[in-house]
């Protein structure tokens, strides 16, 4: 198993340590320079890619993913923008914010928000920032109410701030009467207000938020609380905190690792070397990421944090072995060559397996995860390369006298295994695994049983807002607003007809209906109706056009010309035909048809019955509200009128407002597409998925008119899609890399049995980790999914080292019983040190304000510690039980 000669690369490193050091230093500097220069001076180095940050959760899916393409198309179609939401709450006043002082501030803040525009660098001459015309605030929305018998009143909801309590309450009561505003602008309990500030581009959210905070801070203290949130704000904040994270938590983790290494190996100078390797690999991988034009995303920002533990893993094995070997040789050259002979092969294989684990992420359909996997793979490769070259080189560059007192002291006369508490403990464990092998294996089986149960309990769910700590202002705002309002998470349901309106054989149908109109025209004594209608009928009969809209268009333009030159005695007849043709055209305007709108009403009622749905808004709500106010104002009139004409006339009335364009957020001007805006009180993917499923059920049980086809969009829905793809993709990636790693193990040990054995601790570790996640109810979210790959790559390392060394030692000692002591000396110590250093080194991540980093911290620690324990208990117990079969071939 062990090689007699060292690899050429290692010999070269030992012989030319300076060359290796220079090569590493220069290559790293080059990568950093190529990344930093274009970021600092983009104009000078315009051929290179500058640093680009991406905090947009949409980018979890490729830009051409169908759900994103549709989402963007719909945002354009309905002129929907990303919004900053300002929640205003007053817990002290009995009427909440509906008092003159609070509304005065709301008014001022609204006026101030209107001014938050800046010259748009991408569209010279245009302004970017808050879209004033689409702002929702008491002073920017219209009110419609009864103004006495036969009178309807149109006005701004709050033209100016109220001066009395009664006026303030009147504003509240009026808004609560308007379904579009209730639970959106004014909370259902009538205590809170929310302002919605749409943005031309979401990157303005940071400036808008800062400006608003500045304005609020300029007021004397009051009981009004202002909560600023909304997805673009969350994204920007996330971006900022991501950098704080990289700048503080990652170096902090590094410091802890460094201190632990120092504690274990005592030689300050020597433990600097793994830190250098870790730094070099993290910087090189990030440099390569930037140079290749990839963005720093929530996923890729974690690359350094993943590379660091892996980069020090191999170095710890080398130092640990060197620590034990050096005292025997008292010659750094001899000692390092012996160490490298021990470790070259296991290190190569642990590297290959780790790389395979991460590279398997390229199989997921999530671009940021692919990038993450590939660049960590690159980092792992670099870590291996610089560890086997630079660490020996570094040792060679140290003066021999500095190493004089280095190493694991073996006091004369004392048992080698009992010098330190750790040695004593490990040796004891080793002996127990031999004595109680069956007990260990039975416990393992019990653990697997628990793991399987736990995995069956796993709850797949994610919510980007929950990536923030529960104390974070964004989370607090989210909580407060969702308590008061119908929900701040928007899901959009687009409806469009699934069929076109009778394109075939249109001419006979049109002629039939024309004849009906002709009869009516004659009954109404329209002059010359017969002549005119007959002319048109002949025209249609002779037309070659068989396509509905083309036929209508050509006939209409003919009639229009005739109408323009018509004499007084034929004008009315031509006008009647013209109106008939236009009515025909309008049959396609399905969202004016009461049938379609009433279906929407039912659909919305159903959605509102779902627990997580706060409310929904649609063109049907507009029609019902205007209809009610045009008629008596009584609730009995809060309904869709009976004819399409009545709907159309209601909508024209609605558009006689300050904001006629509001309608086009709900329906397209051709009335062929409409959107139901659903407000959810939870942004959890599982809640959104449940709503989507419930809707599908509803639609199949209640077939819609016009074969209306529902399709979701909006970020809350996009999150569900990428999560589905992520879960399926990660399962595939994990299964794929599991098989690859097992094949590599079989190849490494030239034995199926040994290969399978190596997979046991890993399988138990991963199973237990996910089992615990299932049992404690932690959601299986993005970081948890990604960590399965990490656990695979890391957990196998200990098994490889353990088994490789076990074979070397059994060969020397002749049997497993006698090999226990040497196995639980240096090899076990290396594994233990590794697990402790890296595991504890990641605990500083728990202090991070972003939850994904906390998850990663806990996970890496648990994986390493558990994998260490599993390797040191299960493997020796299994070897004990299966010794004959495992070593039969060798004897």
């Amino acid at each position, binding site marked *: 198993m062990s090689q007699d000669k060292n690899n050429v690369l290692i010999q070269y490193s030992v012989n030319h340590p300076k060359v290796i050091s220079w090569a590493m230093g220069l290559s790293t500097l080059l990568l950093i320079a190529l990344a930093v220069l274009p970021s600092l001076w983009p104009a000078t180095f315009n051929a290179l890619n500058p640093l680009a940050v991406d905090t947009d959760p949409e980018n979890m899916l490729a830009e051409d993913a169908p759900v994103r393409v549709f989402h963007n198309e719909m945002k354009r179609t309905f002129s929907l923008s990303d919004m900053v939401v300002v929640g205003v709450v007053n817990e002290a006043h009995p009427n909440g914010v509906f008092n003159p002082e609070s509304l005065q501030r709301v008014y001022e803040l609204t006026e101030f928000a209107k001014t938050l525009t800046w010259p748009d660098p991408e569209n010279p001459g245009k302004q970017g920032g808050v879209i004033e015309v689409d702002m929702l605030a008491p002073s920017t929305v219209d009110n419609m109410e009864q103004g006495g018998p036969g009178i309807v009143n149109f006005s701004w909801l709050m033209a100016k701030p109220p001066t009395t309590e009664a006026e303030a309450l009147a504003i509240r009561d009026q808004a609560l009467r308007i379904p579009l505003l209730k639970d959106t602008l004014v909370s259902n309990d009538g205590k809170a207000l929310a302002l919605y500030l749409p943005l031309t581009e979401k990157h303005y959210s940071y400036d808008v938020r800062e400006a608003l905070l500045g304005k609020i801070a300029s007021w004397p203290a009051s009981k009004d609380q202002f909560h600023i949130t909304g997805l673009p704000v969350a994204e920007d904040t996330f971006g900022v905190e991501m950098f704080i994270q990289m700048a503080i938590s990652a170096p902090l983790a590094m410091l802890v690792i460094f201190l632990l290494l120092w504690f274990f190996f005592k030689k300050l100078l020597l433990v600097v070397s793994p830190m250098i390797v870790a730094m070099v690999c993290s910087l090189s991988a990030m440099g390569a990421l930037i140079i290749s034009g990839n963005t720093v995303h929530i996923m890729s920002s974690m690359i350094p944090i993943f590379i660091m533990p892996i980069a020090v893993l191999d170095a710890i094995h080398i130092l640990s072995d060197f620590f034990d070997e050096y005292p025997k040789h008292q010659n750094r050259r001899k000692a390092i060559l012996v160490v490298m002979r021990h470790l070259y092969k296991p290190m190569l294989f642990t590297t290959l397996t780790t790389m395979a684990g991460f590279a398997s992420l390229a199989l997921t359909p999530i671009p940021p995860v692919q990038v993450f996997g590939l660049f960590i793979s690159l980092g792992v490769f670099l870590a291996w390369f610089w560890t086997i070259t630079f660490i020996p080189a570094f040792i060679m560059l140290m003066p021999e006298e500095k190493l004089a007192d280095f190493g694991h002291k073996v006091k004369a006369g004392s048992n080698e295994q009992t010098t330190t508490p750790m040695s004593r403990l490990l040796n004891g464990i080793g002996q127990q695994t031999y004595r109680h092998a069956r007990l260990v294996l039975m416990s393992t089986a019990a653990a697997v049983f628990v793991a399987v149960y736990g995995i069956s309990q796993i709850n797949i769910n994610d919510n980007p807002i929950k990536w923030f700590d529960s104390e974070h202002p964004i989370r607090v705002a989210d909580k407060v607003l969702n308590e008061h309002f119908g929900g701040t998470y928007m899901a959009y349901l687009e409806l469009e007809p699934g069929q076109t309106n009778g394109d075939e054989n249109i001419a006979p149908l049109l002629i039939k209906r024309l004849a009906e109109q002709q009869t009516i025209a004659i009954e109404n004594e329209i002059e010359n109706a017969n002549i005119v209608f007959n002319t048109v009928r002949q025209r249609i009969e002779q037309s070659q056009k068989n396509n509905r809209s083309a036929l209508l268009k050509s006939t209409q333009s003919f009639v229009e010309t005739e109408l323009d030159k018509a004499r007084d005695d034929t004008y009315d007849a031509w006008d009647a035909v013209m109106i008939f043709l236009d009515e025909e055209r*309008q049959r396609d305007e399905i969202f004016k048809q009461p049938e379609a709108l009433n279906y929407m009403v039912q659909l919305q009622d159903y959605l509102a019955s779902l627990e997580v749905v706060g409310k929904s808004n649609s063109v049907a709500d507009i029609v019902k509200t205007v209809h009610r106010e045009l008629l008596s104002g009584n609730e009995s009139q809060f309904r869709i009128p009976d004819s399409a004409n009545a709907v159309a006339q209601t909508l024209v009335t609605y558009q006689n407002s300050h904001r006629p364009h509001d309608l086009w957020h709900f329906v397209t*001007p051709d009335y062929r597409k409409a959107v139901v805006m659903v407000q959810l009180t939870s942004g959890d993917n599982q809640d959104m998925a449940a709503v989507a499923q419930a809707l599908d059920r509803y639609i199949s049980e209640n077939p819609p008119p016009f074969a209306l086809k529902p399709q979701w969009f909006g970020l809350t829905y996009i999150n569900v899609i990428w999560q589905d793809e992520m879960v399926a993709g990660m399962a595939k990636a994990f299964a794929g890399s599991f098989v690859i790693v097992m094949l590599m193990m079989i190849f490494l040990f030239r034995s199926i049995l040994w290969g399978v054995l190596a997979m046991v601790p890993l399988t138990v570790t991963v199973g237990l980790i996910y089992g615990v996640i299932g049992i404690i109810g932690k959601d299986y979210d993005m970081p948890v999914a990604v960590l399965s790959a990490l656990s695979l790559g890391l957990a196998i390392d200990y098994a490889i080292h353990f088994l490789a060394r076990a074979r070397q030692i059994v060969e020397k000692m002749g049997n497993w019983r006698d090999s226990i002591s040497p196995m639980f000396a240096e090899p076990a110590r290396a594994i233990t040190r590794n697990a402790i250093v890296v595991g504890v080194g990641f605990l500083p991540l728990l202090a991070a304000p972003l939850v994904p980093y906390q998850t990663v911290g806990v996970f890496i620690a648990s994986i390493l510690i558990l994998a260490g324990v599993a390797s040191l208990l299960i493997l020796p117990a299994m070897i004990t039980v299966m010794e004959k079969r495992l070593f039969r071939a060798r004897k």
Partner: protein
Amino acid sequence: MPIFLLLILLFFSSITSAALSVEEIVQRANKTIYYQGQDGRAQVKMTITDSQGRERSRRLTILRLDESKSDAIEDGAYESGQKFYVYFQRPADVNKMAFLVWKHLDKEDDRWLYLPALDLVKRIAATDKRTSFVGSDFFYEDVSGRRLNEDTHELLETTKNYYIIKNTPKNPASVEFDYYKMYIHKTSFIPVQVEYFDKKGTKYREAKALAIDTIQGFPTVTKASMENLRTGSKTIMAYRKVEYNVGLDDTLFTERFLRKAPKKKLR
């Protein structure tokens, strides 16, 4: 400005005027746009195009009757009470819908709305007139006129062809603009361009006269556009069959005729 428009305007340039006060200029412009003849009638084709190029069109007929009994500027014919009757023809689903407006100089206007499909006549009490005219980019006030005494007028510049006038509202809280600028042609007194500015000094709304004809001796805008620079929406009103001094009867402009449109007068 299109060349043809300049040529038409040059035609009117033959009449030269003595130095006019800013008040006289805005009075003449107001008369040209809103008060020519004792009454008037026009068919309007309105085309609304949004920022995505999606078009909607409406056809309507507007009847107008002035209260002032004289058409001479000296008698104050540039501003008086007025009545409007707006009758919808198309789209078909709003056919027969009608508006009636009584414009008063001393109080809020009276407005009525007739919705045939709901068989409903309703009085509308609107607190301001700067709301959309039937969903277009024009406001009610653009169609019926803004009272001259609501703004202070300032002659910013006199160019070869235009008086450039800045109008600042006396009650800024009642309107959405900070001020507006009118480019009034010196001889025809047609405001060929009107630009609205917000508090930040950004132009956000713009009206243009796109075609001008002389009808019965009156220079008449026969095609006008209004663009909302914030939403990117633009409305073009093309006027056909424009006629002055039709001899419209005061009784037409009553609630009774909302339900039963005076068809012959609307052709």
